[in-house]
C-alpha cells in the first residue's frame, strides 16, 4: 500500500482571500493567547500573588480545548479545501500528541526527582540519584529477568496457537462451536481469570487440580510458593488468555494461502509433515512474525494477573516490571523512582522492538 501521493485526486478551486486568512490566524493565535493568559494566571495563583479561585489546572485544560477547536477551525478557514482534508487526521494526531507527548515530557521531569506523593514536601530535583538507586536495586533487575523468561514462553504459545489454527483450518464439523470456545479466554477479564483460575482452580486444598494431583498419589501441590512453579503458573495463565489471539491471526494466514499451492505440493509428493515444513510454514512466516511481534508487545505489558494473584511473590519470583512499579507506587507512593524505572523500561522496549523488527524484516524478505 503506497502511502505517499494522493490516492484520491480532487481538483479544488477555492480562492482564499487575505481577509479570510487573517481571520483564521487571529482565531488561532487568539486562542493560543487565551491559553497563555490562563496558564499565567494559574502560575500567579500558585505562587500566591493573586487569588482568583483557580483551585486546580482545570481552567488551563479548558483553555487548551478551546485552542484545539480554534486550531481545527482555523485550518479550514486558512486553507479551505486542503484544510478540510487535514481535518481527517488532525483530531487524532492532536489527541494522541497531547495525551502522550506531554505526559512523557512531564514524566522525564518526574523521573529525575524525589517525589513522594504522600509526603507534604512536594517534588525535589535529585539528579541521577534515581538512576543510581535503580542500578543497585536487585528487585528491578530481577523483574527485568522475569520479563525475558516470560517472553521466552511466547515460543511455546506460538507452537500451541499454530497447532490450534491448523486444527481449526482442517476439515472439521462444528467449526463454529470450536472457534467460539477457543476464543472465550481472550474475552475474559484478566482479573476475573486470575480469580477463577489462580485463586480458585489452583487452590491447593479445594481446587480441582490440586485434588486431582492428590488423587493420583502425588504430594499436595504448592502452586504459588515455589518460585519456579509460581512463574510457570503465571506463564500458563497468561498463555491461556492470549493463545486465542495468536491463533486467530495464524488462522487468517492459513486461510489466505491459496488452495492450489497445497494441492500442487500434494501432487508433487510433499504431503503431511514435509508439506507443512516446506510449503505451509514458509508461507506462514510473515504472518507468524507479525503475530509474535504483537504478542510480544502485549507480553511486555503483563501485569494484571501478577498483581492480583501473587503480587510478585514469592520473593519477587513472578514480578514483572509493571507489577513491580505498581507496588513501588502503591506501597511507598514513590512517584519519582517509579517513573524512572518505567522510563528505563520504555527505552529498553524501544531498543528491543527496533532490533526485533529489523531482524524479522531481513528474515522474512526472501519469502515475500
Amino acid at each position, binding site marked *: 500500500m503506497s502511502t505517499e501521493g494522493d490516492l484520491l485526486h480532487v481538483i479544488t478551486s477555492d480562492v482564499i482571500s487575505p481577509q479570510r486568512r487573517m481571520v483564521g490566524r487571529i482565531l488561532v493565535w487568539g486562542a493560543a493567547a487565551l491559553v497563555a493568559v490562563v496558564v499565567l494566571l494559574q502560575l500567579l495563583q500558585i505562587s500566591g500573588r493573586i487569588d482568583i479561585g483557580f483551585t486546580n489546572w482545570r481552567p488551563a485544560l479548558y483553555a487548551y480545548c478551546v485552542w484545539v477547536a480554534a486550531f481545527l477551525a482555523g485550518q479550514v478557514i486558512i486553507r479551505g479545501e486542503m484544510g478540510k482534508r487535514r481535518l481527517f487526521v488532525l483530531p487524532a494526531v492532536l489527541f494522541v500528541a497531547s495525551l502522550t507527548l506531554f505526559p512523557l515530557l512531564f514524566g522525564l521531569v518526574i523521573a529525575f526527582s524525589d517525589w513522594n506523593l504522600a509526603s507534604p514536601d512536594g517534588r525535589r530535583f535529585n539528579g541521577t540519584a534515581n538512576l543510581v538507586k535503580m542500578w543497585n536495586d536487585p528487585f528491578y533487575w530481577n523483574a527485568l529477568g522475569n520479563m525475558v523468561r516470560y517472553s521466552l514462553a511466547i515460543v511455546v504459545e506460538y507452537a500451541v496457537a499454530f497447532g490450534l489454527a491448523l486444527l481449526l483450518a482442517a476439515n472439521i464439523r462444528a467449526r463454529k462451536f470450536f472457534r467460539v*470456545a477457543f476464543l472465550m479466554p481472550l474475552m475474559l477479564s484478566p482479573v476475573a481469570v486470575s480469580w477463577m483460575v489462580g485463586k480458585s482452580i489452583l487452590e491447593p486444598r479445594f481446587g480441582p487440580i490440586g485434588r486431582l494431583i492428590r488423587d493420583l498419589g502425588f504430594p499436595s501441590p504448592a502452586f504459588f510458593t515455589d518460585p519456579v512453579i509460581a512463574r510457570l503458573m503465571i506463564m500458563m495463565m497468561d498463555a491461556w488468555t492470549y493463545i486465542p489471539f495468536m491463533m486467530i491471526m495464524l488462522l487468517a494466514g492459513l486461510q489466505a494461502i491459496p488452495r492450489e499451492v497445497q494441492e500442487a505440493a500434494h501432487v508433487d509428493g510433499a504431503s503431511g509433515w514435509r508439506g507443512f515444513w516446506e510449503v505451509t510454514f514458509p508461507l506462514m512466516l510473515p504472518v507468524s512474525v507479525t503475530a509474535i511481534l504483537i504478542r510480544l508487545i502485549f507480553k511486555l505489558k503483563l501485569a494484571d494477573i501478577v498483581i492480583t494473584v501473587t503480587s510478585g511473590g514469592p520473593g519477587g519470583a513472578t514480578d514483572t516490571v509493571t507489577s513491580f512499579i505498581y507496588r513501588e507506587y502503591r506501597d511507598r507512593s514513590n512517584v519519582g523512582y517509579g517513573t524512572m524505572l518505567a522510563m528505563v523500561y520504555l527505552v529498553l522496549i524501544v531498543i528491543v522492538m527496533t532490533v526485533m523488527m529489523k531482524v524479522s524484516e531481513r528474515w522474512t524478505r526472501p519469502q515475500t
Partner: protein
Amino acid sequence: MTDATQIFHDSAVDGASRARWWTSRVLIYGLLILWAVVCLFPIYWTVTTSFKTAPDVMQGHLVPWVDYQPAWLGWRGLGMSPDTIGGLSTPRAEFLKRFANSAVISLSASALAVILGSMAAYGLSRFSYRFGFMRNSDISFFFLSQLILPPVVLALPFLVLYREVALLDTRIGLILLYTLTVLPIVIWIMRDQFASIPTDLEEAAMVDGLSVWGAFVTIILPIALPGMVAAFILSLVLTWNEYFFASLLTSTHANTLPVMVASQTGSQGVQWWSMAALSFAAILPLIVIGIALERFIIKGMAAGAVK
C-alpha cells in the same frame, strides 16, 4: 451399486489410508475437544461454584444435581438470587454502580476511538499529508508506535497530571486514557478496511457534487461499517477488561468492575461462592458478546495479519 457390479475394488493401500484417515480424525477431534475443555472449564467451574455451599466447595463437587444440590448462596451475597432480587441490597447497588461505570467508560472510549481512528485512517489512506517533517508513513508510524508504549510509563505521570486537573477518579479521565490505548488498534484495523475500498467510489460521488466529507460520510462509512464494528467490539473487550489504569486512577466514584473483583479477592477469599458469582457477573457481558459477535472479533484481529 452391489458388490457384483463393483468395478473398482479398494486395494490394500486404500484400506491402510482409510485406517489412517480414521486415526487422524480421532486425533483431530480429540485435540479439539481437549482444548475446548481447557478453554471452557474455568467458566464452568465459576458458574457451578457460584451455586455451591461451603461443604460442596470443601468436598470438591463438580457436577450440579449429581454431586450436590445447587443453592443460591453466592448470588444471595450479591443480592441477585430470586428471594433477594426484589429487596434492597447494598452489594447489588455497589455492583450495579461498578457495572454502569464499566459500561459507560468502555462504550464511550470505544466509540470515541472508532470515530477518531476511522477519520485518521481514512485520511491516511486517501491523501498525502505533510506536517513539518512528518509524511503519511511517519504519521502512521506515530500512531502505531503507541502500541509499544507500556501503560506503566504513562501511569504515574497521568496520576500526577490528573490530580492537578481534578480528573482523578472520574469517568472522563479513564475514557480519555482508554481511547488513547485502543486508538492504534482501531487505526490498524480501519487502515486495512479503507485500503480495500476502491477510490472510484468517492470520485464518482464527487463528480455528482458531494464534498470530500460528504463522500466519506455517505458513501465510504456505510461500506466500512463491518470493519468499524469489528474495531468497536475489539476496543470494547480491551477497555472492559482493563485493570491497571483503573486501579491506579480511580478510588471510589469511577472504579470499574475489574477493580471491584480484584478488591474482593483479598477480603473475601474464603467466600468462594460469592466471589464466583461476582466474577461470573463481571464476565457474562463479554461471554455474550463473544458468542454473538465472534465473527466481528475474528475479523478485527485478522486484519493486518494478512497483507
